[in-house]
């Protein structure tokens, strides 16, 4: 066991954005219950870029769905910005997602019938944001993500990387407390992927946007400031990037992953 990588030097000055305590999630009916999350504790501070890693079936996506209020936890409490989402009604959750959270999906999930700009402005369409404010917000985000020139194009006219940038812009338009990204590079070629991740890391650093990203790709998670490893529904370990270079951090992630996936090798 060489996984004593837990760092205890957390910066307590930063505000807590997400606080999950003993989160459990089971699927299936009585007699055939499968527990996917087995009591997860997690704290995300403002300005963090957290990666969630783990093998298939470790519970990554379930955790993301539960934290992102798309699915409900069977047990445990989840506080986002101090609000207890496990006690909210469905309509409140919807409003909460719309106002506080941003989403980036593996398949972009852009609406085919809307242009890039219309897609990006969708989350603010029901809010109270004034048109000028929304326009200004759009301009600045489009500039950061380098998609200004695509505003009037339809999704079928642009590349995968551009789609994912559009999706990212949509996630950022309402200045969310927390952005959830589910395998954002899963459908991209390596060049587009690293370009997108670089932009996400920039946005995280410069704009102070808190991001939680689920991925199985060690290269992707090397852009994070912290990586949480899940195994069989539990937090297995955590890695902080600290002041390390991305290459060094990448190597560390690979090491943990080797151990994580090494069980079967041990068993041989």
């Amino acid at each position, binding site marked *: 066991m060489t996984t004593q990588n837990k760092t205890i030097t957390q910066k307590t000055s930063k505000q807590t954005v997400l606080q999950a305590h003993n989160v459990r999630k089971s699927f299936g009916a009585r007699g055939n219950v499968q527990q996917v999350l087995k009591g997860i504790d997690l704290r995300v501070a403002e300005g963090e870029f957290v990666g969630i890693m783990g093998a298939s079936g470790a519970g990554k996506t379930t955790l993301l769905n539960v934290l992102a209020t*798309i699915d409900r936890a069977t047990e445990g409490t989840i506080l986002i910005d101090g609000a207890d989402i496990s006690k909210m009604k469905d309509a409140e959750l919807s*409003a909460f*997602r719309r*106002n506080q959270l941003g989403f980036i999906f593996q398949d972009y999930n852009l609406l085919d*019938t809307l242009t890039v700009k219309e897609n990006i*402005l*969708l989350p603010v369409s*029901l809010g109270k944001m004034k048109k000028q404010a929304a326009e200004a917000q759009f301009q600045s985000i489009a500039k950061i993500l380098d998609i200004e020139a695509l505003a*009037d194009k339809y999704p079928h006219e642009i590349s995968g990387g551009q789609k994912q940038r559009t999706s990212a812009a*949509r996630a950022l338009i309402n200045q969310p407390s927390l952005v959830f990204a589910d395998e954002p590079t899963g459908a991209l070629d390596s060049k587009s992927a690293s370009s997108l991740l670089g932009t996400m890391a920039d946005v995280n650093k410069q704009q102070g946007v808190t991001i939680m990203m689920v991925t199985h790709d060690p290269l992707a998670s090397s852009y994070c400031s912290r990586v949480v490893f899940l195994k069989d529904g539990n937090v297995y370990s955590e890695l902080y990037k600290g002041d390390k270079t991305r290459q060094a951090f990448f190597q560390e992630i690979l090491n943990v992953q080797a151990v994580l996936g090494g069980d079967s090798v041990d068993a041989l």
Partner: protein
Amino acid sequence: MCRLCSGVTALTLFDLVKRSMRKNIKHYYLYFFALILSVVLYFVFATLQHDTAVAEQGTGTMGTAFQVAGILLIVIAGIFIVYANAIFLKRRSREIGLYQLIGLTKRAVARLLILENMLLGIMALIVGIAVGMLVSRVFLLLLMKLIGYEAFIEVSFSTAAVTQTFFVFLAIFVLTTIQMVFTVYRNSLLSLFNSEKQGQHPRKPKTAVSAILALLGIGLIAFGYWLSGRMLNAMIFFNMLAVLATVILGTYLIFRVTISWLLYRIRRSKNGHLGLENSLSLAPLMHRMKSNANSLTIITVLSAMTLTMTAAAYSMYYSTERETQAIMPFDFMFENEAGLADDISEELDVNGISYQREAVETFVVPAEFEEKPAPFLERATDIALLSSERLQQAGIEVDTPKNGEASFHDVSVATLFNSVTLPFDLTLQDEERTILSITEIAQQNVLNWSFFTSQIVVNEETYQSLKEQLAVESGETALQQMDGFHIAEQDMAAASAIYQQDKYKTSDLHVDYYSSYEDAVQSNGLLIFIAGFLGLVFLISTGSILYFKQMTEAEQEKQSYATLRQLGFTVKDIMRGIVRKQAFVFGLPLAIGLAHSIFAIQAASFLFRTDILFPASVAMGVYALIYLVFAVLAVGYYKKTVKAAL
């Protein structure tokens, strides 16, 4: 070996058919429903057509009407089923692709589909005919009630109807089979897997051309409407064709260009700030406008046709009594046949029939109209002068004109005078060339005339002075003695039978109010039944086609709803946009169809002497209500889809 292998395939193929049908009930029910519905409606129609009671009632026209309606019914049922099958095949294209992916040959897949289609067809025929037998009695009762036939009726099982239905649907089955074989052979695997995602992307319209075509669409319809109000001249046939052509072409342009053009302009003005409701209505509408233009045009034109047909038929049926009364204010009348009038009075007395006999005097004189809205008025024409006071005594509702003024009564030409400004002069062709001023065009006769003469009502004073003068000039021949009879309501049938005896017949046109009314009820009742039945079939087909289309769209857009809900929009928020889209998809064809039919009815209103606003509104209202049921169903389906999306 080949024999063996084909035998094995057939067996497993049949298993596959059974299994896939059991598992895919959801996909099948739509097509199956369309099949059964068409069978039921056609079978009911065929049963009525072959029913002895109907055949006994009907004369030649009835048979022809049924035949024409039957052909229309087959065409509509065929289009409807082929359309439902197309949607059905599109939904299953992934499955069809999968069969080929796992190694079935195209031939085998085609056979599988044909086998399925055959099973579905046979089941639909059995179920449809069974249901048809149950409901045909209701329809027969309705028909008999409409044409005023009151007797006990028994619906007999009609083998002819079954055979006819069988052959019609066999032909339709052949059509759908060809369609299925086409789908399997003409599509590549890739296109089969992607067909659910198909849909055009809106292009930026070429502004100048689009703008011209968009305005041309509106212009053509406006011109058609304008012309429809001015058709009544020598070129009436050409005018009707022109109206039809401009309105249909205009409708097509509206759907194909105008709407896309308008939506594009609205969208551009939003500059990306579309909002959720527009994102769910305007954007997907623009996306599909190109492929929907044809079907929306057909649905609109069909709706307009159906609305016009049912509204006109119902108006005729509704106003039968008033129309007949307008032509025949007396139950029957004798012209210069006082002897016969005495005879019939006696016979009515003997039979205990209460009646009122009214002698009305009139004299006939040629006159020239200042206004000549019809060709026969170019020359001086005979008119009959009557006294209003005498008519009032005889129980005819008529106003008393002032001295020197007159009202014009001739229902056969009254509508021609609609565009004429009152008053206008009527110059009698007497020596003094007396001028009467026509101040009213009445929608009602004051005498039952067996021949064509306009009736001019003046007051007693004017009448007497003219009579004295004219009696000197033209002698007794101009003076006519009319004997009109009013019969009490309950004795009308008996009195009519007495009047219709040969001994009272003085001319070929031997008509009385009661028998004319009965005849009119019978033919108008048949007309409204057939129009209503066809209308119902059109309505159900067009409504279902729109509903099926919306079902497919809802499924295609499922991912968008999932995304939107994830982004934090509630089902309620999303439904607001969807309801807006449905209002457009269902509302626009209905609104344009209604507008078309209103102008069509207005153009045809010269056929009616009575006000048809009420019956036409009722028919249109009922149509719109049933049509809206489909919109509500579509919204319900969307709601289910949106709820299940996350």
